[in-house]
């Protein structure tokens, strides 16, 4: 189970890094969302993977750690809000500049011309 879990997290991270490096705002937002999934899974595993146990000490010997679950919950909430904000920002940039490239190559030159 650990191997499968590790491969999943690794694949998700690798895909997200590829998408983030695309330098276009939409793939970057998708990439960041994937990265946050990978991070959430990773955080979850930091309490060790235990199956079928309650998160209470004393109820059974191998108990599952409740803290990472709380951390993941916090991270999900924050990540969700941030994804929404970055999508709106990306749409605005697309609307204002007419391109979804994060670094428009001609942009600097354009500004120089205006001066």
């Amino acid at each position: 189970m650990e191997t499968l879990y590790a491969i999943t997290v690794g694949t998700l991270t690798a895909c997200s890094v590829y998408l983030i490096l695309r330098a276009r705002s939409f793939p970057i937002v998708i990439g960041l969302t994937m990265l946050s999934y990978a991070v959430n899974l990773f955080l979850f595993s930091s309490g060790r993977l235990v199956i079928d146990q309650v998160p209470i000490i004393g109820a059974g010997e191998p108990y599952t750690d409740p803290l990472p679950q709380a951390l993941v919950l916090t991270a999900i909430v924050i990540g969700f809000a941030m994804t929404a904000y970055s999508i709106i920002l990306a749409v605005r940039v697309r609307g204002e500049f007419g391109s979804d490239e994060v670094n428009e190559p001609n942009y600097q030159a354009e500004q120089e011309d205006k001066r």
Partner: protein
Amino acid sequence: MLSQHLAILPLLIPLFAALLQLFPWGNNPQFYRRIIGLVSCSLLIIVSVTLLLQVNSTTLVYAVGNWQAPYGIVLVVDRLAAMMVLLTALLALPVLIFGCYGEDNLGSHFHALFQFQLLGILGAFLTGDLFNLFVFFEVLLISSYALLMHGGGKQKLRATLHYVLLNLAGSALFLISLGILYGITGTLNMADMAMKVSTLTGDDAAIARSGGLLLLIVSGLKAALLPLYFWLPQAYATTTGTVAALFAIMTKVGIYAIIRVFTLIFGADAGLAAGLGYDWLWWLGLATLAVGGLGVLGSRDLRLAIAYLVVISVGTMLTTFSMGNDRAISGVLFYLLHSTLVTGALFLLADVIAAQRGKTASRIIKGRKLAQHAALGLLFFVAAITVIGMPPLSGFVSKLFILEAARTGAQVALLWPLVLFSTFLGMIALSRAGSRMFWHTLPGKPADISHPRGQLATIAVLLLGAIALTIFAQPVSDFTTAIADDLSQPERYIEAVLQLTGGDHE
């Protein structure tokens, strides 16, 4: 009753102020919102002074919800945290007053965002829990995303997009490093983690080190260390003066996180993980200094030049910190106080200058004479010699402390030339900017936009802070030396957090 909850007041005040400001306040809401914001900032100053006086004798530990230390979340107010809280409060009030002269009308909910920003910054300084640090980082980032867009405009949009995307990636790295550290040590409380890290052996220590280095990357991103500083100049140069001035404290949050984590958890007593990251900080800090110096010289816009001065200050502080001795840390903290106040003043000043020059704005070219030529010229002169580090003001004193802290030959050989050379470049850039803007003005009648005296007075107050830092350099440096002494003995912090927690709360 109030005194035992003193430690959490710096968080509750801005939180409740922000919530109150969000209410619909009738036909003229801005008036009430301003009053609430100003009251909140004034209260913050009073509370932080009280805190500072208290923690001079004992470290305050506040267990939130009275859950004991390694399990619950604690707020820890030691000398360092109290100093940073006071600095934030002292910066926030003049900046907010400046903003109340009309800049707050440029976008909705400026005041609430300002208070949430303060909440995040103060929370990051006060918390004793690593995950809580992440949460407060997010609070300050989320409000800074919105504040950066304050006033709108194309250029801000792109700078904000860069800033948001970079910081989202940074937050993901922060969570990964927290996961690693929690997985190895089984705790998130900084004091507890410091104890656990020092006993690690073998592979566990190696994994903890990689977690620590990830944390360094994240803090480096917030602090704008060399390979991660590219977001800063554009973001700071395009946003409004008020926001940029408030952001003068933001890079310091990253520096605070580095100082806290790498003295407490990965300090000299950390066993196999001891002294983690110091080499990286030394070389990257030096490179940041050099690049910042070139950036200042190459800027054709006053705001951009000031943003690069922030980069220089980050390089100076992190390089000096990495030398690790008591005098170096004391020097860093003194420099931190000085640079926050003076860059805040400079950003506000650049805003005023840009507004009065009209079309040429803050670009460093010949332009119209300013309406309040003499007053602005004087303020710019004082701010410039302070930030450059010319005698006699605080910049000079703090650079002296930093240069004195270099001990070995190698440190002197690298730190002295780079600090002095970047000082020299800053001097060239700012004197060029000053002479173009104030002396080589176009003939004809001066600009007709003038600013109220009160608004200029807020800039003067920030500069007076820098001057006061020069006059009271001895007591302030005594205090920073005491902080450095505390930081070099993390067991004091650990004992305070793990044993005294909540004892007298019943």
